[in-house]
């Protein structure tokens, strides 16, 4: 006796959250059944393995049918085939678009292309995430990217509208899309200590302040690209380190203000010029795409690492960066105050976030 056909169709589509997770995680039916058995469900319910197998198959089939709709979530809301309560629809979408931290760190900033897709094998091996799940996550990134790429207006809003994601997840996707578009390097060894959250935080600040949309949301450009003009202007900041008088003045202003307030004052004093040169040079280099990509590498090399090697506590870093930014306002010879604030305001936020072990 073999089962040729075995289906269950409810008027309200049954969604089992646990099975959904297993499916999203890319387990085969057999593996999923084994995992469910291990969870002790048989003992709880008195069911048999055959029942579990049939149940799992059913759910997998349903998810497979739903997957097409999940690719365009508004379709899931309007379709008539599966009657699913709104809360369940939200859960299906949210979980489908959720991603693994380990995975996203691997592809963050990479071009979402066929080439990268080929590397998924390696990523799967490295992270222990099933290839199937990697593919789903990668395709999600790519799909969102494609849809919002050419769109005007707020990136987060666009994502939310077209994919019906929660605010939190939409912001994460905005970061992913932003990183992919600007191809920021995140994979270098010295950046490994950074989490996706760190990058997402920076991405949000940059989207808010450094893109075209940031200046004028009516502009018919979008959040994805950095404001070219702004990057061009950043060259003007070079004077802060190139003009020796200005640099000395800046240093003395900062030192005066921080004397006695900083545990690492002497180290700061000794390193000020290096640090300042680093931060300003990063700004000046952003005209080149290559250097834009290396932004995070540079920040870590030029600022985070020196401070860390001198064991600056985070509070001191904060005091320093605040004072460092503010003091520029007192430099009479410096004319680019607004530009400086736009640059340094964001950079300060990023650096504070990046500064940890």
């Amino acid at each position, binding site marked *: *006796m*073999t*089962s*040729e*056909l*075995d*289906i*269950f*169709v*409810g*008027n*309200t*589509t*049954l969604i089992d959250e646990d099975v959904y997770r297993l499916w999203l995680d890319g387990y085969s039916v057999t593996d999923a059944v084994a995992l469910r058995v291990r969870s002790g469900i048989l003992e709880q*319910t*008195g*069911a*048999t393995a*055959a*029942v*579990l197998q*049939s*149940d799992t*198959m*059913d759910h997998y*089939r*349903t998810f*497979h*049918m739903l997957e097409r709709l999940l690719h365009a*979530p*508004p*379709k899931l*809301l*309007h*379709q*008539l*085939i*599966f*009657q699913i*309560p*709104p*809360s*369940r*629809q*939200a*859960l299906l*979408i*949210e979980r489908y678009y959720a991603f693994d931290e380990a995975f996203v760190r691997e592809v963050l900033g990479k071009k979402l292309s066929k080439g990268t897709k080929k590397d998924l094998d390696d990523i799967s091996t490295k992270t222990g995430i099933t290839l199937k799940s990697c593919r789903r996550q990668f395709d999600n990134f790519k799909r969102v990217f494609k849809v919002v790429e050419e769109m005007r207006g707020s990136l987060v809003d666009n994502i*939310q*509208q077209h994919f*019906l*994601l*929660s*605010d939190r997840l939409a912001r994460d996707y905005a970061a992913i899309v932003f990183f992919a578009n600007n191809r920021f390097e995140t994979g270098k060894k010295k950046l490994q200590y950074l989490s996706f959250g760190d990058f997402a935080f920076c991405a949000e600040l940059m989207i808010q302040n450094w893109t075209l949309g940031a200046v004028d949301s009516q502009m018919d450009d979008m959040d994805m690209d950095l404001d070219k003009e702004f990057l061009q202007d950043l060259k003007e900041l070079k004077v802060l380190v190139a003009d020796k008088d200005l640099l000395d003045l800046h240093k003395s202003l900062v030192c005066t203000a921080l004397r006695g307030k900083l545990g690492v004052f002497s180290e700061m004093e000794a390193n000020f010029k290096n640090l300042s040169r680093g931060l300003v040079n990063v700004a000046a280099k952003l005209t080149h795409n290559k250097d834009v990509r290396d932004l995070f590498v540079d920040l870590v090399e030029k600022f985070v690492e020196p401070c860390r090697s001198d064991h600056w506590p985070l509070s001191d870093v904060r005091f320093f960066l605040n004072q460092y930014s503010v003091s520029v306002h007192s430099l009479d010879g410096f004319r680019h105050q607004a530009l400086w604030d736009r640059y340094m305001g964001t950079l300060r936020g990023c650096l504070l976030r990046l500064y940890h072990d």
Partner: protein
Amino acid sequence: MPGKLKVKIVAGRHLPVMDRASDLTDAFVEVKFGNTTFKTDVYLKSLNPQWNSEWFKFEVDDEDLQDEPLQITVLDHDTYSANDAIGKVYIDIDPLLYSEAATVISGWFPIYDTIHGIRGEINVVVKVDLFNDLNRFRQSSCGVKFFCTTSIPKCYRAVIIHGFVEELVVNEDPEYQWIDRIRTPRASNEARQRLISLMSGELQRKIGLKVLEMRGNAVVGYLQCFDLEGESGLVVRAIGTACTLDKLSSPAAFLPACNSPSKEMKEIPFNEDPNPNTHSSGPSTPLKNQTYSFSPSKSYSRQSSSSDTDLSLTPKTGMGSGSAGKEGGPFKALLRQQTQSALEQREFPFFTLTAFPPGFLVHVGGVVSARSVKLLDRIHNPDEPETRDAWWAEIRQEIKSHAKALGCHAVVGYSESTSICEEVCILSASGTAAVLNPRFLQDGTVEGCLEQRLEENLPTRCGFCHIPYDELNMPFPAHLTYCYNCRKQKVPDVLFTTIDLPTDATVIGKGCLIQARLCRLKKKAQAEANATAISNLLPFMEYEVHTQLMNKLKLKGMNALFGLRIQITVGENMLMGLASATGVYLAALPTPGGIQIAGKTPNDGSYEQHISHMQKKINDTIAKNKELYEINPPEISEEIIGSPIPEPRQRSRLLRSQSESSDEVTELDLSHGKKDAFVLEIDDTDAMEDVHSLLTDVPPPSGFYSCNTEIMPGINNWTSEIQMFTSVRVIRLSSLNLTNQALNKNFNDLCENLLKSLYFKLRSMIPCCLCHVNFTVSLPEDELIQVTVTAVAITFDKNQALQTTKTPVEKSLQRASTDNEELLQFPLELCSDSFPSHPFPPAKEHLESASSNSGIPAAQRDRCSSWIELIKLKAQTIRRGSIKTTVTVEKASPVGDGNFRNRSAPPCANSTVGVVKMTPLSFIPGAKITKYLGIINMFFIRETTSLREEGGVSGFLHAFIAEVFAMVRAHVAALGGNAVVSYIMKQCVFMENPNKNQAQCLINVSGDAVVFVRESDLEVVSSQQPTTNCQSSCTESEVTT
């Protein structure tokens, strides 16, 4: 009444890409009704076209309005080649033809293609203007309402219940026409869908005409079926009950009239339970009692049993109500006379209803059924489907005579079915013989005199259990006792019926689903030889199914079956029998005895040990079941009940031969032989298997109950969460071990595993009950068995669940009853004495007699004698609001649905798709139905030539059933409804050819589209528009895109 049909095509969405180059579609729409076709403009390059067409107007007569479906075809325009069809929508406009139903059909319909399934949606608006026309020769029957619901619909009142209406139409099946060889599968499928749609329209119209002739205005319990007879054609047939219904004026009224005794029970002309005090006469003489107690008394016992008091099923002398015997006779005669006058003029006094207004059902006689095996031949003249008509007429005649033999003039809970394999067809009909209150059957209801008697009449709640036949003239042997409730009238020891449990019946504990499952191998044969083989097998199957049911019922410690449905399915090389029913313990019937096992060779020590082991297991199971289903009937002391009177068998024989019952019925008691009832004899391995299989049925996990009736006896506090589902399984038998035993085991496992899976899947709903569990078996190929289950899971509130059982127990404590320990015995070969048919002789005889009578030479005929069941009684006088009617049911707290919305769903909370509930029940828990919008009756075919790509057979069928649900919901929503009640999947024919990567499936579903309002909303909103959307879960805000 000719009319003007107006159609507007608004827009489409989610269309498939038809042009690979542009990834877009140039769609337009053809709207066709009858022979007229209109087209919209082509909407270029869009997957979401906005046609916004003008109103297309069709001027048609109402005959066409009833017969024809509106056919909407969406196509992709192609300049150079033929336009490609995207898909179609068929809209049945019947609901627009009667005034109280829908006024407009408007909404998104899935665009369906028989090869690709659903491909996007189309927004359509349909209206009808009817002109009055008093032509009395009209062929249409616009205005007659149709209901699938097998009870009086909730917002109506039955003025008169006229009776049985039936009709059938036949045609050639397009799939088998010569043209099918040259046309595409799509064209063939569409021809079929359209033809069936036409035929059902025609059928409905014809039935409507009959109703008008009877001066009715509605058909309730409308059941339409298709017989796919292959080469010989396509038959669409329908049965129903014609009624005159009155809409209840106040839609907000909480109590549906049919449940409210005060409204309905104006008169109970035949009160069978006169004031108890008048019966205080002394004990009747033993002699008198003898006449009505037929007991398989002790003296016949081959097997010694442990208790001397056993078999006290029949009343002992000295019962307080001895006078019943005296009074019962004349009274019944009177009743019979009166009812007869009401029913006499009817050819078939049948009713497809399964639930009735209070007072309608006076007595129930038991199940009557008839089957006949026919050989199909080509239908030569579709306009005169006389053969098929004659076949059914013959079966109905037989049913009628069975009912007569039971002293009944009517058959309720009546249904008909067929099973076809190649050219052999088994026609089956079954129902419950009953005596009805003629008041509902006649015109000119007596309004005046009766109000006053209402209240005092209520005590007749056990009345339906009382035997309708004369105990002096019993049609079959039965153990009779005095009713455990009123003590006045006789009741049988078990009662089988096809109806729902009457709402006022007193039940102890809860009910449960009981199934008998059986397979029999048969040799492959052709034509007549095949029909003969089947005919010969049928009586054995009926017999065994019955035995199984009886054993399982006893094993559950229950004494009555409701909703009994026995399905016999014929395949190439086997017959399958599946009986489903809901077992309950009726307080009015005696406590069922246990089951005793007897061994053939009592001297063998180890064998005996084995036997006693089995016996212990059985006893344990019974005890466990009693606990599980909370069956704790009151102890009744022996003296009150009286002891059984040994009735000489001769005597009952004699009486029976005097009765006018038909041959079959008379033959029944041959089966009784000389053996004791209720002994399972283990004399060979087969019997051993049977006993084992008895014990293998696992009860549902805790928190689950199941039944196949509308509601679960003993549970009355439903909450509003419901989940309707369909589950299909097909297994392939390995051809090596095809023995009856292996087959039985496979089949049994299949059903049990299916149930287990259901329990597992629905575990999140606990505590809940699977209601209206409907199993259908088919044998699509040699080694394939297909089981389809449709049911609804309803949650209930556990905390209130207990109260029901308490009261009756206390109340009845002072009553007497037979000793619980008593053992009823019956031999395996004979089954219970209530089994009326003799399994052996009838086949041949009938074969000959029937075929000689009928003048249909090709048809091989046999009737299996129907078997007839006994009736039961309900005990207990009135507890005020005890087992409750739907009224209480609807009071359930409105928790359910609300729970699972609004969690963390920011943008999704607004769905534009309204929720449509589907349920096989006639009501929605926690809600009130305010409007019936019309009948939904849809037929779909789906075919694929890329089975593997669609996920194999499971993927294919899963998607198809989901699509069918979607299309039903869309039609209901377009009518302005939010639920389908009395939903049924009447057919699910699945064929596959994996080698060719092909599969095909046909599905036919029906139900009543309704508008319902949550009771919680009703209370709040009360007067303001009850028709609008009331579901808590469908917040109708627009989605922002």
